[in-house]
């Protein structure tokens, strides 16, 4: 089969990132001890361009690459993939903005760092375009391996090394499940294509088992209870900007791929297979409740955010249940939620990056370490309050509108009880998000006692400001994103 270059044009956003990443790796050979901020700039420009190209193509017809029809094309570049690509590129962009000052502090200011972020984004993009399970798997691994490496970058800190090892082992375990599942699905259908999978009636035990194992693999990646054990240690140990990137990017990519699997692969519109709904519902409820309750008892802000990220995976699973019920708006709701979640989480980790102390250590991440920050650094305090309020799902933020959209989808899918569980979870979450605000504004500042210093960095400021802007924008004027998510879901045939 010959591929002409113009035929690759729909892949341009991804190819561009691969190119920039390789450029960064090659230049690293000659760079010496110089400052690597230029690498961050290059990565940001590349990601921004890639995002722009993805969004610009929205509305154009679907492109099938390396194949002639849905059943044999490994890559499907439709509006769904384009919107998702733009989303993960945005996540990478903000994460790259958060990185330079942190990397300098933590002593891992390498060009490869940004290269790995770009590769991870490429993997996420491939996941969103995957027309068959093998492509999906390759995208997932590209993303995962890059993120494993990013997690272990703070080589001097044993917590970072432990996190990387743990993440890697658990990730390999999850990959095992996933591959086994794909093999079983292949055994049952003699194909890895999602379109072919959709034509199979439910009931084959081999197929059911295969899909179950694939779902377990997903559950690991999004840290759904009971496959969440790795999350807190990994979140705590990884470099803070990477934690933010991993919390949003990996989750977004996994949910987007899951959405395509549910809509294209499981033949949901025909309602052939309702076995998954009770299982997914149980997963959602467990994830929301356990995630929120464990977040409640954490003393370390990064660990709290890790468990809160678990609980957000639970809210998103509610959307997946609604999607599996055939509710057309659930997919848009998931994409919308992921987008607002991306900005509010990255923003929160951005503020934490600002306040990171050179010596680091778990003590500097406890609630008490942030006493009085709200007054010492008013802008940071306002931003953090905004992100916490958004994570708690209060108006006028994107977090609120996202939750509203998700829960509406659940209600329309006649899963009102799931919406109520989500609401209960949100209420629990209010307490621990408020604790951050309490620490920032209401605790007495210990005298003398060290307090985190705010690192000045133009890139970091820009990153947090961008996140704050979009959190508000999505809450007050969500219509443009709603239109995007709608056209994304239309391209899946909904």
């Amino acid at each position: 089969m010959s591929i002409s270059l113009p035929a690759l044009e729909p892949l341009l956003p991804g190819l561009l990132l691969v190119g920039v990443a390789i450029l960064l790796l090659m230049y690293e050979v000659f760079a010496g001890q110089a400052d690597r901020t230029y690498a961050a700039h290059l990565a940001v420009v590349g990601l921004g361009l890639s995002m722009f190209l993805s969004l610009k193509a929205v509305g154009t017809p679907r492109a099938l690459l390396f194949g002639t029809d849905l059943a044999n094309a490994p890559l499907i570049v439709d509006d769904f993939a384009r919107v998702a690509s733009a989303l993960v590129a945005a996540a990478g962009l903000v994460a790259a903005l958060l990185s330079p000052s942190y990397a300098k502090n933590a002593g891992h200011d390498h060009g490869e760092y940004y290269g790995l972020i770009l590769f991870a984004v490429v993997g996420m993009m491939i996941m969103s375009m995957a027309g068959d399970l093998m492509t999906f798997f390759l995208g997932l691994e590209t993303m995962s391996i890059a993120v494993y490496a990013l997690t272990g970058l703070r080589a001097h800190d044993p917590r970072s090394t432990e996190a990387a090892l743990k993440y890697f082992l658990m990730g390999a375990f999850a990959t095992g499940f996933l591959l086994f599942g794909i093999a079983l699905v292949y055994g049952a259908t003699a194909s890895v294509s999602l379109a072919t999978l959709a034509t199979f009636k439910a009931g084959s035990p081999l197929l059911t088992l295969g899909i179950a194992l694939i779902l377990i693999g997903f559950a690991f990646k999004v840290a759904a209870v009971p496959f969440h054990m790795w999350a807190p240690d990994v979140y705590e140990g990884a470099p803070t900007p990477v934690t933010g990137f991993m919390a949003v990017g990996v989750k977004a990519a996994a949910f987007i791929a899951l959405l395509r699997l549910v809509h294209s692969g499981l033949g949901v519109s025909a309602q052939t297979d309702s076995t998954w709904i009770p299982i997914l519902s149980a997963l959602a409820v467990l994830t929301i409740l356990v995630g929120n309750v464990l977040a409640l008892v954490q003393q370390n802000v990064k660990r709290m955010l890790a468990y809160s990220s678990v609980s957000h995976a639970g809210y998103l699973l509610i959307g997946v249940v609604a999607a599996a019920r055939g509710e057309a708006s659930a997919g848009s709701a998931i994409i919308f939620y992921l987008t607002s979640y991306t900005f509010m989480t990255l923003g929160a980790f951005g503020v934490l990056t600002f306040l990171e102390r050179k010596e680091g250590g778990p003590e500097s991440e406890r609630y008490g370490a942030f006493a009085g920050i709200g007054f010492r650094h008013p802008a940071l305090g306002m931003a953090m309050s905004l992100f916490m309020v958004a994570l708690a799902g209060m108006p006028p933020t994107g977090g609120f509108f996202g939750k509203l959209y998700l829960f509406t989808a659940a209600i329309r899918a006649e899963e009102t009880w799931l919406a109520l569980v989500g609401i209960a979870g949100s209420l629990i979450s209010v307490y621990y998000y408020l604790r951050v605000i309490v620490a920032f504004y209401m605790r007495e500042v210990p005298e003398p006692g060290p307090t985190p210093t705010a690192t000045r960095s133009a890139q970091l400021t820009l990153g947090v400001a961008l996140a704050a802007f979009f959190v508000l924008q999505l809450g007050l004027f969500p219509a443009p994103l709603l239109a995007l998510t709608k056209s994304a879901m239309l391209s899946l045939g909904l």
Partner: protein
Amino acid sequence: MGFTPEALLFAVFSVSSVIAALGVVVIRDPVKAALSLIACFFSISCLFVLQSAELLAVLEILVYAGAIMVLFVFVIMLVENRDEAIVNPALGQRLGVPLKLAAVALVAFALLNGVRRAGLSTPEDLPTDFGSVSSVGHEFFDNFLFHFEVTSVLLLVGIVGAVVISKRRKPQT
């Protein structure tokens, strides 16, 4: 399916692969564990032959048993052989063992049950050149070209990641 020589061989090699795999986990001496892993790879390779996947069988021996394991053994021998204290596992871990065993048993049961009821195809249904080098090559470069290409990116990422983590750099001032 009657009791054929293939079935006998399959039983022998599958049992030996499972035992060898268990050995990797259970044996404490790293060198012996590594040898057990080689035995496991070998058994799996034999299973591939029984499945008419000759190329895979050869690759299994060449790549895993040959290259990767040699590397493993080198690393084990080069790293100082310290006597690690055997730590009592925490309560949570001890509780987890039966749970994990139960999960494994469940998956195994479901799998056996599924395979038994699925009614799979037999080797006679396969095309004659199944598993040959040329047919695998055709699959790679015709139907799975994209996968083949993107694997190169994946490997590149793996290499870069490994280098970045392991490379010791001078702490920056």
